[in-house]
């Protein structure tokens, strides 16, 4: 049972609207990139098989809406995440400033048992824009923040050019794997072999 569970690694990508979450996922999973901005609605995942230490894992990568008004159902999908990826745009200061909010929001909502050691990875995306001339968040600044939050691994990426995306997700997968799964251990009171057909629901029979 546990082995089956460990074959699936759940990763959540968070960050402000327009930082390139969907693009990063698409670049990694499909090796495709589009310059067009398309908002994401709700939460949506793609899967990718990864080889790691001679074992095959399925990475379940959840892309999320950066715009709050497209997150109407809440964030129940955070549950059971093995790694959280925080993305910002190196050309937009606000998106960097908001990393803290995203991180805290995630820790509150997902409430992992060991929040101190829950694996995060930070990606500074869009380093290709304008040859780096419009950049406002320095690598040093980003790394300092990551260091202050318990040495979060940091990658500078370009979803457009595919730069560092593979390496970043390798690291994400590795860290996700390190995360100890919180199996809610279920111990049945009695072994009810006859099946627990329960009639609590008074709904219809469909």
């Amino acid at each position: 049972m546990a082995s089956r569970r460990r074959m699936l690694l759940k990763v959540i990508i968070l960050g402000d609207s327009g930082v390139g979450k969907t693009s990063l996922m698409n670049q990694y999973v499909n090796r495709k990139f589009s310059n067009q901005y398309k908002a994401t609605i709700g939460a949506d995942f793609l899967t990718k098989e990864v080889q790691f230490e001679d074992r095959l894992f399925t990475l379940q990568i959840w892309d999320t809406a950066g715009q709050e008004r497209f997150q109407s159902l809440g964030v129940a999908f955070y549950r059971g995440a093995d790694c959280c990826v925080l993305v910002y745009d190196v050309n937009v200061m606000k998106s960097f400033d908001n990393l803290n909010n995203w991180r805290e929001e995630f820790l509150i909502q997902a409430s992992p048992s060991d929040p101190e050691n829950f694996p995060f990875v930070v990606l500074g995306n869009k380093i290709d824009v304008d040859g780096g001339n419009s950049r406002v968040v320095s690598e040093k600044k980003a790394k300092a923040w990551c260091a202050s939050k318990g040495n979060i691994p940091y990658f500078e990426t370009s979803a457009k050019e595919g730069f560092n995306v593979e390496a970043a997700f390798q690291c994400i997968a590795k860290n996700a794997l390190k995360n100890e799964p919180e199996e809610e251990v279920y111990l049945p009171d009695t072994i009810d072999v006859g099946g627990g057909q329960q009639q609590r629901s008074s709904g219809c029979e469909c």
Partner: protein
Amino acid sequence: MITDGVEDEDKWLAAGNAGLQQNAFYMHRALDSNNLRDALKYSAQMLSELRTSKLSPQKYYQLYMRAFDELRKLEMFFKEEARRGCSIIDLYELVQHAGNILPRLYLLCTVGSVYIKSKEAPAKDVLKDLVEMCRGIQHPVRGLFLRSYLSQVSRDKLPDIGSEYEGDADTVNDAVEFVLQNFTEMNKLWVRMQHQVGLNIYGLLPALMCYNACESFILLADPELRLAVGVSGLQGPAREKDKREKERSELRDLVGKNLHVLSQIEGVDLDMYKETVLPRVLEQVVNCKDEIAQYYLMDCIIQVFPDEYHLQTLEILLDAFPQLQPSVDIKTVLARLMERLSNYAASSAEVLPEFLQVEAFAKLNNAIGKVIEAQVDMPVFGAVTLYSSLLTFILHVHPERLDYADQVLGACVKKLSSDGRIEDSKATKQIVALLSAPLEKYNDIVTVLKLSNYPRMMEYLDNETNKVMATVIIQSIMKNNTQVSTADKVESLFELIKGLIKDLDGTLHDEIDEDDFKEEQNSVARLIQMLHNDDPEEMFKVICTVRKHILTGGPKRLPFTIPPLVFSSLKLVRQLQGPDENPFGEESTTPKKIFQHLNQTIETLYGVPSPELALRLYLQCAEAANDCDLEPVAYEFFTQAYILYEEEISDSRAQVTAIHLIIGTLQRMHVFGVENRDTLTHKATGYSAKLLKKPDQCRAVYACSHLFWVDDQDNMKDGERVLLCLKRALRIANAAQQMSNAARGSTGSVALFVEILNKYLYFFEKGNPQITVATIQSLIELITTEMQSDSNTPDPAADAFLASTLRYIQFQKQKGGAVGEKYEPIKA
């Protein structure tokens, strides 16, 4: 059956979770032992928990996510089964034996996903089957989540271009068709929620719904049934409605996500978007006739599809707006569309031709016009928001088309004109944003002044906001150092900022904060200083224009606005004094003409009344006239200043200040002939001697001594009269000393004497023959005696003053040479 209360809900959720976990436990055991039969049995039981009707969408989502995670394990198991040789087609049949339809369909979707992956059947057939089968669930919440599950598991298996599931022909079409169908069904479920009255419906409907749900549900559209259902659930209809709308709002992303999926499908190119996707989506949006769905889905369309597509399909998109329900908040959606397009235009100059090619402005303008026309009840705020967004769009896309901008302002004015002055604070804020946008874009009020409707727009602001806007305009000019240099432009500008220039109707003075008022008027003053034109003719016109406006300002504003105007005029006078003097003909601007204007301008301060300020300005003018060699003019200004002094300035301190100003100015005048000068100096000494307090008298009188001894003017060195003044000052000082003695029993300070001594030394050094060593010597002695007298009040400052004066004499002696020789005889 009433399911109010979060606590109850939490209990149900906990119970659901527990049931789910229990069955998941057995499912895991079955999976581990490769027991397909049990795996199916327990997974179906686990999924039965999703049949609940008691949870709000957000809670249901939590339960759903748990089931979702468990189903991933089952999916892996199915994959392994398939790998082990189990026929996936059999599996697909097998799961359909589940007793309840909801678990059955979840299982079917899960197997379906594996089925597609196995490529044993074309993806499109499996998808088509699944999307059809899901019709079996007509309960909105359960149906929406089920279809959302289908959408999620099929997400990476759509047969789009480049996908490994790509079929032979028309493959993208199949993918699009599938998502569109799912979207349509989901939207129907979602909209239908609005028409279910009361929760009792859940108790009433099951009988109708099951299995043939699809057909039975058509009954709901029957008004009679709806009525029947309604009767049983009428408790607190308003509350019910709120609750329902909240639930719908929570569920909206499940519907909207389909549009996101569509936008991500590889192969949905512009053609396909234009020909199929957009028309089909819009058709559903328009036809559902549901306010919430229409508002949300239009917003989604705008956000999920790329800008390029919107530009190329603008007409189709915009045509849908007038077909929406009248209650839909179109303005927000349209404003977001324009915001997106504006950002797109701003992102790169390369995309601008695209905007021109599709005539985006004309289309948007037209659409907005129609919306505003159609929605008669749209609040002013809404209309202004729309125009504001359109203006922003123009500024980004057509910055050179001022006519477009003006057109939008004009349309806005027209809309506002039917509503009169705006009292709504939200609308006012929007208008300020609207009016600020061109300023920020062009950074140049001159450009903005070309917008004929701009000032008309400002008419609609309340006084307070009008002032705020006027301040914004002035700040923009300051910041950008904008040259407003012709009279015409100044005229328009002052017309624009008239909220600061004069009292608008209905402003009450006591409402205005004193500090705010000062701040405002100071900014106007700064503005006046900034106006400049190198051509004196035009500059004079500018000054006249400003004058015309500020004279309407009333007594409170004039003290702020007149001085900058005066100095601005004097600057022009100096400019005219240049080397090639008076190159102008009869009619042209001459210093004389400007002075005449100035005279009248300053006169207006009488009414304020502000005589002290007027006096200062007259003296400034007199000095300028002096520099222009205009004796009569300078004399006239002095006369005015004297009249003011005599008639208007009664405060003794003000008199002291004024007299020193007069003496100082007069001292610098060289234009006067003997007669005029005598008259004026005579008057000035006369005023000095008549000041109220003796020390003031004394100081003014000794200051007058300078009027008779001007350094670089040989004809103005009258040693005798200098001495007369100083002697007079001494007498006054003496009198002051005695008066002080009489009144307080002690002598006052000897400081006055020391001051006079310094004057003696000054003129001594300057070579005034009347000031001799003897006179200085006796004065020093007098002071020393005074200081040693018993009745003298010790005054350390005066002592120090005297000591340093004496040190000075000593110093001059030691210098040697002519100066040393001169000082040598003085014994200190």
